[in-house]
C-alpha cells in the first residue's frame, strides 16, 4: 500500500495553518520568523508532492520537474529572507532593546 497524495497535502495544510497561527499569535519577533519558515516548508512539501504526481500522470517527461524547480527557488528566497529578517530584528533591537512586536509601533497613525 502506498501513501496517497492526499495525505501529503493534508500534512502540508496542517503545517501551513500552524505556522500562520504562530505568526499571528506569538509576540517574539524571532519566533514569528520561525513560524514563517514552517509555512514555507509546508508549501515546499505541497509543491514537490504535486510535481511528482504530475510526473506520474503527465504527458511527456515522466519526471516533470517544474514543481521541484520552483521549490529550489523557494529555498533560495527563504534563505535570503531569514538573513534579512534577522538583520532587521537586530537593527531594531539595537534601537530599542525589545523584540516584542507589540511594542514596536513607531509607525502608528
Amino acid at each position, binding site marked *: 500500500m502506498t501513501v496517497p497524495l492526499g495525505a501529503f497535502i493534508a500534512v502540508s495544510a496542517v503545517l501551513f495553518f500552524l505556522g500562520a497561527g504562530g505568526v499571528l499569535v506569538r509576540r517574539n519577533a524571532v519566533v514569528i520568523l520561525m513560524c514563517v519558515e514552517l509555512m514555507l516548508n509546508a508549501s515546499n512539501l505541497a509543491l514537490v508532492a504535486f510535481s511528482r504526481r504530475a510526473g506520474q500522470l503527465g504527458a511527456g517527461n515522466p519526471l516533470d520537474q517544474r514543481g521541484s524547480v520552483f521549490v529550489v527557488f523557494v529555498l533560495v528566497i527563504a534563505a535570503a529572507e531569514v538573513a534579512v529578517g534577522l538583520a532587521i530584528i537586530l537593527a531594531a533591537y539595537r534601537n530599542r532593546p525589545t523584540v516584542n*512586536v507589540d511594542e514596536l509601533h513607531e509607525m*502608528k*497613525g
Partner: protein
Amino acid sequence: MIHNVWLIPAFPLAAFLINALFGRRWLKRWTGPLASLSIAASALVAIGVFLEVRSGAERTIVPLYTFISVGAFHANVAALVDPLSSAMLLVVTVISFLIHVYAIGYMAHDHGFWRFFSWFPLFVFAMLILVLGDNYLVMFVGWEGVGLCSYLLIGFWFERPEPAGAAKKAFVMNRIGDWGFMIGMITTFLVFGSMNFVDVFERVAKDPPAQGVLSLICLAFFLGATGKSAQLPLYSWLPDAMEGPTPVSALIHAATMVTAGVYLVARSTPLFAAAGPVLAGVGGVGALTAIFAATIALVQVDIKRVMAYSTVSQLGYMFLALGAGAPIAAMFHLITHAFFKALLFLGSGSVIHGIGGVQDMRRMGGLRSKMPLTYWTMVIAGGALAALPPLAGFWSKDEILGSAFKNGYPILWVVGVFTGGLTAFYVTRAIWLTFHGQPRDRQLFEHAHESPRVMTWPLLALAVGSALVGFIGFPPDNGFLHSFLRPALEAGAAQQAIPPEASNWLEFLAFAAISTAVGVGGILLGLSMYSRGRPDPAAVSRAAGPYYDVLVNKYYVDEIYDRRFVGVAKAFAGAAWAFDIHIIDGLVNRLGWAIKLAGGGLRRAQTGIVGNYALSVVAGLLLIMVVYGGYATGWLRR
C-alpha cells in the same frame, strides 16, 4: 498702394511693440519720435491709398489672413478699401501724427514718457483696425481695442485716484455700449448669415428681413455708438476722461475714438436706411444730446471740461445728420471737427502747460500777450467751432442743418440752429476768460510762457486745416467730398448715375444767413457779457438761480447714475460676495472638514503593530477564498 493697405496699421503696432519692450531702459526719449515717425509712415501710405481710390479704384477687399471659416460663414481679417474708409484713414493718420509730435513736447517732463508713447500708437493701431475691417467682427476688435487704450491713457496718471476712477468709468460705460454692439453683431449673423459688410448690404437690398428685426439690429448698433461716441445716455464718461493728459483728450476724445460711433452708423447706412423709424430716433438722440451738452458747457470753469461738453454736443450734430438721412454731411462734420476740436484741445493744453498745470479759467486772463501763437490758433479754432464763414466748421455745420430741413425735419433744424448759438456763446466765453481781460492770478500770469516749437507747429498745422478743410465740401452739396463719398454712402446713387444737382445758391444763402446770424449773435452776447459786463455774468447766474445750479451740477446726471445704477450693481455685488463666502466657500470648507473627519477616523487603522497588519492580510485571504469559492460553487453569480 491699396494692396499694401495693411502697412498702415502695421507701423503703429511696430512702434508700440518696440517702445513697450525697449522704451523703458534703452529708447527713453526716443520713443516719442519713433512713434511719431511710425504714424507719419502710416499717413504716407494712407495718402497713397486715398489717391488711388480717388482716381477711380473700385471698392477693394484686401485680405490678410483667414480668421474664421466654418461652413458657409466666413469672417476673415480683411480690409475694405473704399472712399469712406480711405477718407477716414487719412483723417486718423494725419491728425494722429500732429498730436504725436505735440505730445513729445507736452509729456517731456513726465517720468512715464516711454509708457505714454507705447500706448499712444497702440491706440492708433486699434483705431485703424476699426476703420479698415471689412466685417463687423474685425471692426469690433478695433472697437474694443480703442476702448482699452482709452482706459489705459485716461488712467495714465493712475497713482492719483481721480484718473483711475475716470478710466474705470469710461471703460464700464463703453462696455454697456459694447454689449449693444455685440447684440447687433450676433443678430446680424443670425439674420444674414454673415458679418461682412458687402454680403450684408447686398442681402438687405435684395431681400430685406422684417423691419422689426432690422430695427433691433440698428438699435443695438446705435447703443454701441452711444457708448463710444458719448451720446445720451452714455455720455458722462467723456467729461471725466479729461483727467487724462491733454494729447489724449485731443486725439481720443475729440478726433478719433469718439467718432467711431459715427463711422459705425455711417458704414451701416444701408441697414439704417431700411430700418425706418430707428433712423429718426438716431437723429432725435443726436439733437437732444447736442443741446443738452451745450447748455452744460455754458457754465463750466475748467477749460478742458468746456471742450469735452463741446465735443459731446458736436457729436450730437453728427448723429443728427445721420438721422436726417445725410451721412455725407455727418462725415464732413466729422472731418472738420477733428481739425478744429483737436486744435482747441491742443491749444488748451498749451495754455495749461504754459501756466504750470492750472486748468481753472477763473485763474486765467490776459494770456493773449504772453502766448500769442496759442491765442491766434485758438481763435481760428473757436471760429470754426462757432461756424463762422469761411472757416471749416461753417461749411460742414451748415450742410447738416440744411439737410435736416430739406429732408423734412424742421424741429431738428431749429434745435441745431439754437445750439449753434449756444456753441458760439460758450466758445467766446472760454476764449475771453482765458486770453482777455485782467489777469486774475498775478502769480500765474508772471510765470506764463509760450509753448516750445514742437508744440506750436502742430497748432499751426491744425489751424491751417481748420481754416481750409471746409473747402473740400465746396460748392455745397457738390464739392469734392460729396462726389468722393457718394458711391460709398448713398448706395443707390451710384447705380442711378444721376448727375449731381447744381448747388441751389439761393437756398444755401438763406440757411447760411440764418445760422450765421445766430452764431454771430452768440459771439456778440458773449463779448458783451464778458468784456463789458452787460449784463454782468455773475448777476445772470444769480438771477437764474436754481436753473444755474442745475447746469453747474451737470443736471445731476452723475449723481442719478450713481444712486440708481451703481448702487444697484453694488448691492448685487454684495449679495454675490456673500453667496461666494458663505455658500461656495462654505461648501468647500465643509468638504474639507468632512474629509479631515473621515481621515481621522480611518487613521486608527494604522496601529503600527505589525501583527495587526498580518492579521488584515489573513482576513483578506479569507475574503478572497469566500469570493472564489462562491463563484466556483455557483453561490455567487457573476
